[in-house]
Structures are given as structure tokens and as C-alpha cells.
């Protein structure tokens, strides 16, 4: 049990680092894009990439959790994380389909 707690402690640190640096990175890209937009039309495309980074960040977070649960052989939670990833992918695919229609 104490080993279990230590393990999830590591996952918490991992996720905290990912979300902190990911937010900084995405913010930097969006800010750079908006600044660039004053001079060139490319700026908006950079900002759009930054927005994509923001949307991807929680998806990556679930991916990291899936890998972690697999490595500690917690199959039940690995399956739950995989299910969340599946729903996230379906959502993206459904959106892409509708966009073309």
C-alpha cells in the first residue's frame, strides 16, 4: 500500500510537470502568433497551432496516465484511461467528418 502511494506520488509529479510546462509552451506559441499577426498573415496560423497545443495537452495527459498504469500493471485503470482516449479520438474524428459535410 505504501509502495502504491509512492508510485502515484510519482505520477502526480509527472503530470504536474507536464501540465505546467505544456501550458507555458502553448501560451508562448499563442503569444508569439498574435504578436506576429501585427506584421504578417502567418501570425494567425502560428496562433492556431498554439490553440491546437492547448487542446492536445489534456489528451497527452491521459496518454501519460495510460502508459503509467500499464507500467505499474494496473490493468483496470489502464483500460479506463484507454477508454477516455478512445472517446477523445472519436470526438475529433466526428468533428472532422462534419466539417467536410
Amino acid at each position, binding site marked *: 500500500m505504501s509502495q502504491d502511494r509512492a508510485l502515484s506520488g510519482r505520477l502526480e509529479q509527472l503530470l504536474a510537470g507536464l501540465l505546467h510546462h505544456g501550458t507555458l509552451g502553448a501560451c508562448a506559441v*499563442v503569444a508569439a502568433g498574435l504578436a506576429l499577426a501585427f506584421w504578417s498573415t502567418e501570425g494567425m496560423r502560428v496562433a492556431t497551432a498554439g*490553440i491546437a497545443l492547448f487542446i492536445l495537452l489534456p489528451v497527452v*495527459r491521459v496518454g501519460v496516465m495510460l502508459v503509467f498504469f500499464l507500467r505499474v500493471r494496473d490493468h483496470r485503470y489502464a483500460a*479506463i484511461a484507454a477508454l477516455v482516449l478512445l472517446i477523445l479520438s472519436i470526438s475529433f474524428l466526428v468533428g472532422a467528418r462534419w*466539417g467536410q459535410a
Partner: protein
Amino acid sequence: MQIGMESWLFVAALGTSMLGGVLGMASGIFIVPILTMFARIDIHTAVGASLVSVIACSCASAAPFLKERLTDIRLAILLETATTAGALCGVFLAGLIPAKYLFFLFAFILLLSAQQMLARRREAAPQRDVSHPVRRVPLGMTLMYGAGLISALLGIGSGVLKIPAMDTALRLPIKVSSATSNFMIGVTAAASAAAYFARGEIITAVAAPIALGSVAGAVLGARILIAVPAQRLRLMFIGILVMLAAQMMLAAFGIQLIGPAS
């Protein structure tokens, strides 16, 4: 002209987010009313932009909670299956429900938030046992599904629905339920934002300045100590919520009081 609007959106998001941060409340609920009523932006565009800023704020504020070990990660991922499934259904519904009903629903959620703020003012948070037994998971899952659905429809984090769901159905201590709710909000909003993004319904010129302003405001707001007493600020906040609810209700009937004459 366009650059001017972007700066305006940035400042508006910064201001509301700072106010929210001072009170420890997510400001996502203000973005859609501001965009639709003051900037006259279409409600679907406003929802898309708001979702991006909701994700950004959730991710930006998650790290300290995780480090303090207040977030129940396993419970979060379990409940996320329900919130993301709800969000997916919300994306389908958003295309079918007329804007009029979205305004009604939004007004209702605004009033619910006001009522919650008022309740929090009256009672000091009851401290429960730290070793929290998680109970009534099926009820919790059902409520979370609803929270995800509302989140996708209205572009809000639905913390206003998630926290009471965890309080009542799962009996978590308030600090744990806030941290866990905040952690889940990012993934929930990503489920619907991904669909809107793929559909090309997230307009960068609107979403980018709003997201940036919200994150900056949330970070600043959490650090600023203000001279105004928290109680008075809270009352002002409740007043704004009720006012916006009335505005949204009028907008549902096609009446605009504030904003430039069309």
C-alpha cells in the same frame, strides 16, 4: 481594426479572469456572455473560444494541486469516461439546438452559480474526514455525464455542476473535490474542443486572445491581494451573475439592451 478587437478581447478576458482568480472561481462562465452580448459574436463561435480558454485555465492551475496531492487522479480518470462521453453527445446536440435555447440554458446555469456563491457565503465549508470513502459512484457518473454535456453545449468548465456532484454523490472533502474537478475540466473541454476544432469552428482571432488573457488573469488573480473585502466582492460577483442571467434571458427572446445598436 481587427487588431483592436483582439486587444479588447485580451483585456476583457484578463479582467474577468483576475476577478475570478481573486475569489477562487473559474471565470469561464463569463466569456460566452461577454462575447455574445458585448462583442456580438455568434454563440457557437463564442462557445468554441471559451472551451479553449477553459482548457488553458484548467491546465495552468492543475500543477500546484497535484503537487499538494489534493487531486484524486484515479477517481478523476474514472469520472472522465462519463464527462467525455457527455461532451461527445453535447457536440452532437449543439448543432441541433437552436441558439435561443442555448441562451435559456446559459441563464439557468448563471443563476445556479449565483445561488452556489450565496450558499458558500453563508456556511463555512464543513470539514469532513480526510480519509474519504468514495460512495455512490453510479450517481456520480450520471451527474458527471450531465456536466460534460452542459460543458460542450455552453463552453463552460461546469465546475459549478461537478463540485456539487462530488460533494453530494461522492462525499469528498471540499478541497479534494475542487482540485479533482479542476483536473477533469481540461479533458472534458478537450473532448468537445477537439470536435469544434476539427470542424473549423474555433476562430483563432477570437479564441487566441481570450485564452491568453484568461491564463494571465488567473495567474495574476491568484497572487493579488486586493483592498476590497472578499465579502463585498462576492456580493458584487453574485450581482453580476444575476444581471448576466437576465441579459441572456432577454437575448433568448431577441432583445438586446447592452451593446451597439444594430
